[in-house]
Every structure is written in C-alpha cells, then in structure tokens.
C-alpha cells in the first residue's frame, strides 16, 4: 500500500493538467507526501472485516456491483443500478445498504454520524477510502444502460442547473463558467468532461485544510448548505443522481484517488 501512496503523490506531481492549471501544485505535492491516506485505508479495511450489528457479520460479503465481496474495480463501476435494491446507488448508498441488510443494522444508527471531523473520520468515510483505493488506476465506468441509470443521469443533470432557495443558486452558479473563482478557489465546470475528469477521479479524499476525510456525499451536502438550501437526505436519489451525472460526465478517466485536496 505504501507503494500506492507514493504513486498517488507522483501522479499529483506529474499530472500535467494539475501542474499547469493550479497554483497549488507544490502545496499538493508536499501535502501528498505526508498525508495519512494509507492509514485511513487501513482503518477502513478493519471496519470492512469487523463483524457488526444484530447479525454479527462483517461487510466482506457486500456486493458492490462486481459480485459479493469483490473489491477490485468495484468503486470505478459506481454509481450503478442494483437489482436487489431496485435503484441506482453510489458507493456510500451501497455501503449503507449492506450495513442495513447484511449486518441488519438500523438506518438511524448507521446514518447518525456519516460525516466525521478532523479528530475522527466516520465509519462511512474510512470504508469509502478503503473501497475506493481498490480501484486505483482503473477507468471510471458508471452504469448508464439500465432505464433507471438513464433516469438517474438525467435527473442529476437537471438538478445541477436547478436554481432555488433564498439566493437563487444552482450548482452551476459556481460551477457553470470556465475560469472563474470563488475567493481564491478555482471552480471546475463539472458538467463538462474536461473539468469533471480530473475532479471526479480524486474522490474520496483527504482534505488538508480541515485535516479530514471527505466523500462525495459530503460534497453534495456541503454545497447545498452553502447554497442556503435545506439539507439533502444522505444517500437519497437526488444526491446519487448528482454524483452519477458528474461521474458519467467524467467517464473513462483512470481513478487516481483516494487523493489529497487543499
């Protein structure tokens, strides 16, 4: 795994798009060299193998889309449609599904603390780091053939541009035009493949500025917070649809996370 962490750091240094576009390239390189990605992945692996819940079983039989217990490449194939749940799921939604079905745990207990903090990442965040790490280097191939996958993509695309709330914001208010910034932050236009690819291939990630592990479900949640909207329900169709839409837009790019973010 150590090798992987270094490969990740190297990818950040040598990825030409990053090095040329971002004034943070040096910062990211330095951060990558000392970031505890690997520790988070190990923490997630422990949780994956730990028997929990009324059924006292681990998640090792969880089917992430490539068959029960198959981790390799599973994250790169998400979000996708799952017949057993009859809906499209992203990684976190699927993990939640496995916790509530395989392990027999309650939704309330499993979603009580989905977003952690600098002191302690959540179970969901550590598991996400572990599972995503097993897709490193593999091209993102989210599902897009099933009718519900098509519907989810289309819904995500509409949500991306949907303006609402007291400040009339949509995702596109900030992520809608090329070359724009909020304060000093560069804003990727996530409905265009050339901007979605370098971004969607890095989540989940370790965020240096807050010393915390961040996932895509967290990103959706925190954007809606800043948009002055009510809170999206964790693992809801709306959040999955947005993640699905952006992942399809980034389709084909090799996954190079879990990564380091500013």
């Amino acid at each position, binding site marked *: 795994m150590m090798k992987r962490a270094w490969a990740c750091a190297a990818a950040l240094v040598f990825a030409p798009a990053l090095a040329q576009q971002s004034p943070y390239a040096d910062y990211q390189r330095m951060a990558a060299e000392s970031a505890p990605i690997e520790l988070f992945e190990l923490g997630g692996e422990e949780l994956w193998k730990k028997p929990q819940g009324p059924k006292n079983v681990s998640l090792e039989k969880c089917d992430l889309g490539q068959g029960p217990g198959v981790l390799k490449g599973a994250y790169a194939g998400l979000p996708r449609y799952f017949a057993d749940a009859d809906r499209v799921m992203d990684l976190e939604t699927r993990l939640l599904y496995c916790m509530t079905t395989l392990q027999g745990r309650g939704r309330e207990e499993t979603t009580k603390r989905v977003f952690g903090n600098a002191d302690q990442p959540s179970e969901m965040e550590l598991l996400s780091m572990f599972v995503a790490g097993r897709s490193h280097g593999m091209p993102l191939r989210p599902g897009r053939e099933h009718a519900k996958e098509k519907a989810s993509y289309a819904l995500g695309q509409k949500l991306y541009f949907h303006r609402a709330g007291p400040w009339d914001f949509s995702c596109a208010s900030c992520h809608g035009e090329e070359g724009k910034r909020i304060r000093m932050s560069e804003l990727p236009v996530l409905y265009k493949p050339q901007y979605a690819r370098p971004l969607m291939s890095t989540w989940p990630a370790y965020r240096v500025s807050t010393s915390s592990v961040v996932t895509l479900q967290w990103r959706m949640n925190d954007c*809606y917070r800043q948009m002055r909207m009510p809170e999206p329900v964790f693992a809801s169709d709306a959040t999955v649809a947005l993640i699905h839409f952006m992942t399809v837009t980034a389709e084909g790019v090799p996954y190079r996370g879990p990564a380091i973010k500013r």
Partner: protein
Amino acid sequence: MKKTVLLLPAAAALVACATPVPVGERPKLSAGDLDQVNAVLKRDFHARGQASMERVQLDELQRACNLHADNPPPELARKLEEAQLQAIRFPEGGLIGDWKAGERIAQSGRGAMWSDKPGVQEGGSCYNCHQISPKVAAFGTIGPSLAGFGKMRGNRPEIQRYVYGKIYNAKAYNACSQMPRLGASGSLTEQQIKDLVGLLLDPASPVNQ
C-alpha cells in the same frame, strides 16, 4: 397511504427525466420537468436549522429562469425585471452609508445557512464573486470587478439609487443574474445595503483610491 401518494410524482419524475441530453450540454426543461424536479427536492431534502423546506418552493422569477436556462425571451425578461423593480423599497434621502461597515459586510459570507445561528446578522458574501477594495487579494471572479467603481461613475443620486437597487435586487436589472437578491431575500437590511453603497461610492472608500 399518504406516503405512497406523496411519492408518486417523484417516481414519475425519475421516469420522465429519462430524455437523454448529451454530455457537456445544458438540458432544456419543460414545465412538467420542472414540477418533477421540485417533487424530487420535496421528497429528498429536509429542513435543518433555519433552512426550512419553504426554500425549495420556486417563485415566478426562479421558475422562468429555470425554464429558459437563464435566458428568457426579451419581452418576458423585461416583464420580470419590471416586477422585481416595483418591489424594491428605496429609502428616502441619501443612500451612502459607512464604507467601513460596508467593507465588513462585503467580507462576511455568513448567514442563512443551516449551520448559521438564526438571527445573526448576515453578510453579503460580496468578495466571493467580486474584486472590490484593491487591498483585498482574495476575491472571486464570477461577478465583474468593482475596483474604482465610484471613481469612474461619481456618486450623484441616480448612481446611488442604481447601486442600492442592484444590491437590493439584482434581478430588477438582469432577470436571471447570478447575483442573489440580497435585500428582497431579507438577507441584508436597509442600513447594510447603504453601507455597501458607501463602500462602492464614497470617495474616501479604498475602492475609489
């Protein structure tokens, strides 16, 4: 039973949203599409703190901007702008407040989020999108630079009125502007908007140095 009935429009939404739009393009919406997206928001979001579910309810202007991809036909745009302009409450007298207070309001990105304490005075988040005082390096670029704003335009009453109105309700001048309606939404008070007018128009403000 009630739950099932509520979920029906959302389920219909998922099916009706399936018209494929190519990657990298913005979808065109029908009124039906918009109602269905709204049904999904009502189902998949919940109130938290001061961010109530009323916030997903669209007003006439938001509906029009969503339906026309922020580019309504000119006649509709004029009608929308006129209605927004009519609703602006302009105070009597001079509109130039305290630019120092205005600078603090422009800096502050607080307010109206579920993480903000209700009742705490909101900021304008102005620097998130605009260059304002040339002394502040961390400015956004979504909106135009406002450095030297008053120096170029002076500060006669019509200019004061325009700046006050623009901050109070940017949509009165550009129907689907990306700028929030800071006065109309109740985010900023009359005095706060005057202070921001001061920041842009007072000759002593760093904006005009």
